[in-house]
């Protein structure tokens, strides 16, 4: 396993990193059971008389994929799509706010204010480690020592940064030095984004949705050599308490179509081996549907990972749906979410795993 001395200078200033991660937050808590479907499990149909999906695309081990993710099927066939099953944590919170905080800070005790990526990546003066698009929250890249910028979109960001001081100054104490560092990070990102604003875009056509536009912006940054290892985008609308079937399928369609375009663009630029896409969500939803044709807040759920160097297939173990195996009506996690982070840290970036004592990486990459 990697040692400190082996750490490659992956983020040498001024050039595109060799290992990039695109995080996709499925906001509102995605229904895992209708995304990766245990389609041969009687308990699934019993728990979901109205919402069960019968026409999933069979993958293997009695699991099928939501039919509206069909655009991603070629990636499955090429072994570039991994599903990690049953991801969650003990004593799960059912509050969106609290559970998102758990996912983003990698702490279940609500006592950590650094994002998990802040702990994995080293802050650099010459560039930012992350760009959040479509949200003003730094999320997994926030907290002390973080180095990321968040923006609704690049144009808005460039307008906002116009009034920020551009001049260097002598920082006579640590607080001023910190402020100067933050100022320089913003200005560096703005400078880069200004350049990329005028640079070429991918020839691949992206879906004309908000999500598609964000992915197209990320693509433009990557293919034009932005020196940033992490991008985060959000797909909103997963809090499906009522009338879930059509909206959720529609979201799957957006997700599949968007990520298909993104992977095409990366392949065309010869960068698909340098990129890893990972979804995450606050929690899964309850096993049983509710009386409004929706699902309420649940627990464990699968996570989707894509990339040219991803080891495709099903990873982890699908939690049992048998009523006596559930905890308070929810799936019990079989993979701790920090194992995902451990994997990215150790196997993707070849950096130290901050959770090494408790959480081992998985072989999905």
């Amino acid at each position, binding site marked *: 396993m990697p040692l400190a001395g082996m750490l490659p200078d992956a983020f040498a200033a001024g050039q595109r990193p060799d290992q990039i991660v695109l995080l996709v937050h499925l906001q509102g808590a995605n229904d895992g059971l209708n995304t990766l479907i245990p389609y041969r499990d009687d308990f699934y149909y019993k728990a979901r008389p109205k919402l069960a999906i019968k026409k999933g695309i069979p993958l293997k081990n009695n699991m099928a994929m939501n039919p509206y993710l069909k655009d991603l099927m070629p990636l499955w066939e090429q072994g570039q799509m991994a599903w990690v099953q049953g991801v969650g944590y003990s004593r799960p919170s059912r509050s969106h706010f609290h559970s998102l905080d758990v996912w983003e800070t990698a702490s279940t*005790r609500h006592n950590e204010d650094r994002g998990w990526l802040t702990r994995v990546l080293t802050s650099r003066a010459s560039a930012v480690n992350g760009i959040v698009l479509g949200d003003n929250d730094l999320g997994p890249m926030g907290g002390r020592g973080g180095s990321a910028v968040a923006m609704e979109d690049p144009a808005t960001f460039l307008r906002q940064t116009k009034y*920020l001081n551009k001049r260097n100054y002598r920082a006579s104490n640590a*607080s001023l030095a910190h*402020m100067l560092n933050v100022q320089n990070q913003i200005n560096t990102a703005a400078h880069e984004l200004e350049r990329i604003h005028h640079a070429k875009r991918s020839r691949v056509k992206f879906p004309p949705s908000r999500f598609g536009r964000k992915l197209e912006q990320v693509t433009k940054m990557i293919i034009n050599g932005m020196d940033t290892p992490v991008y985060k985008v959000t797909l909103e609308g997963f809090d499906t308490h009522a009338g879930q079937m059509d909206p959720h399928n529609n979201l799957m369609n957006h997700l599949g179509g968007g990520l298909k375009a993104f992977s095409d663009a990366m392949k065309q630029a010869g960068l698909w081996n340098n990129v890893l896409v990972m979804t995450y969500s606050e929690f899964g939803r309850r096993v049983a549907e509710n009386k409004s044709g929706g699902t309420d807040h649940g627990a464990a759920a699968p996570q989707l990972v894509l990339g040219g160097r991803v080891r495709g297939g099903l990873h982890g173990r699908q939690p049992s749906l048998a009523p006596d195996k559930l905890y308070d009506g929810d799936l019990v996690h079989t993979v701790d979410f920090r194992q995902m982070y451990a994997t990215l840290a150790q196997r993707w970036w070849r950096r130290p795993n901050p959770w090494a004592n408790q959480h081992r990486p998985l072989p999905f990459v």
Partner: protein
Amino acid sequence: MGRLSFSDTRHLVTRTALGAEWGGTKALEGKTRQEAINILLTSAPIRTPGLPALTPWANVTRMKQQSNMGKKRARKMMKIEGQRLKNWWIKHLLHTDAPVNEHMTLFWHNHFTSSLEKVEQPHLLYLQNQLLRKNAMGNFRKMLHAVARDPAMLVYLDGNKNIKGSPNENFARELLELFTLGRGHYNETDVKAAAIAFTGWGTDRNKGTYTYSQVKHDPRTFTFMGKTGAFSGDQIIDIILEKPRAAEYLAEKFWKEFISDNHPDPRVIKRWGAKFKKSNYSIKVLLKEVLNSDQFWSSKYRGTLTKSPVDLVVGTLRTLPFPKLSAGKLSHICQLLGQDLFDPPTVKGWSGGTAWIDTQTLLVRTSLLNKLTRHSKASEKMQSYLPKSTGTEVVEWLLPIAPVLPLPTTPGKRRMVRALMLDPVYQLK
């Protein structure tokens, strides 16, 4: 002892109050340290604005129990009333005649955190806030006993779920880790023992007030910090407060709040802790000790603390006559800047210090100050408000240390104020 210069009084006021009004700051010039501190700590009567309309506990509980619809309605109502409560506090911060007491109230809110997010009962948070305000400069022992019984705290740290046979250690752990001793000064056995002592403490289902249930209390004998007995929760608190470390832990927090982000000299902390404990935990005694110390006045620490969002937003508006923004707008800005009142991000509260400034918040800070100081009709009031004084004095009033960016060469008071407020040093105190 020497007399205070204007720059000294500005230092004293900005670090203990909310902003630095010209008149009050100027009035302390030429006094001795002790005189100035005594004047500053003599509080005007505290009058909070009228109570915002908040639904009492019982009604919210009833709504939640009715149905799923009721639950939804209760949550929606909670959001609206929570905002009302935030606006109420911002209004008070902006207008209070007792800014030092209010600064301390905010300090205690960050020490004894509770959040609307978890508690979902704005009225309980209001009561907790009044409790903190009442005791802000009073006695820490008394406040700690009261906080342990505070209904919002009982909900926030699951005290009301801590019952015989099914202990919940949340409150016991934070009592030791965050409220009194800090990590490394207790062990897991102490946490478990303290949790037993507090079993049976809870909130009344109908009234939302503190209750004690004999049935839910576990009366067994246990060992806590080397002492054995069937201690009550109150006795646990008193055993903790016998430890010199408890007073030193608070002294460390005062160091961080009033002096520096750097680690304090342990000898200073020991000395302050001893004074604090000897006074039976008088907060005023500790505060006076800190403010009278040479460390507080040392030039080494001037301009090294980062202004909190409340310091920046409320402080600026209390210092200079910019057009007042609505309370809703102000609390929204504080939220964007990372200090959402009544909703601290973690049980540890806001980490503060340099963490106040990140790529998001620096942009919001800059754009706020830029908008405020932009030339407008309203800002013409500034011209007449600004003191008839030398340029140097205006710099000393608004900045804790010399500006790092060049000042404008064309004369004009408003231009000067704008330049000073946009200088990075303005973010510091």
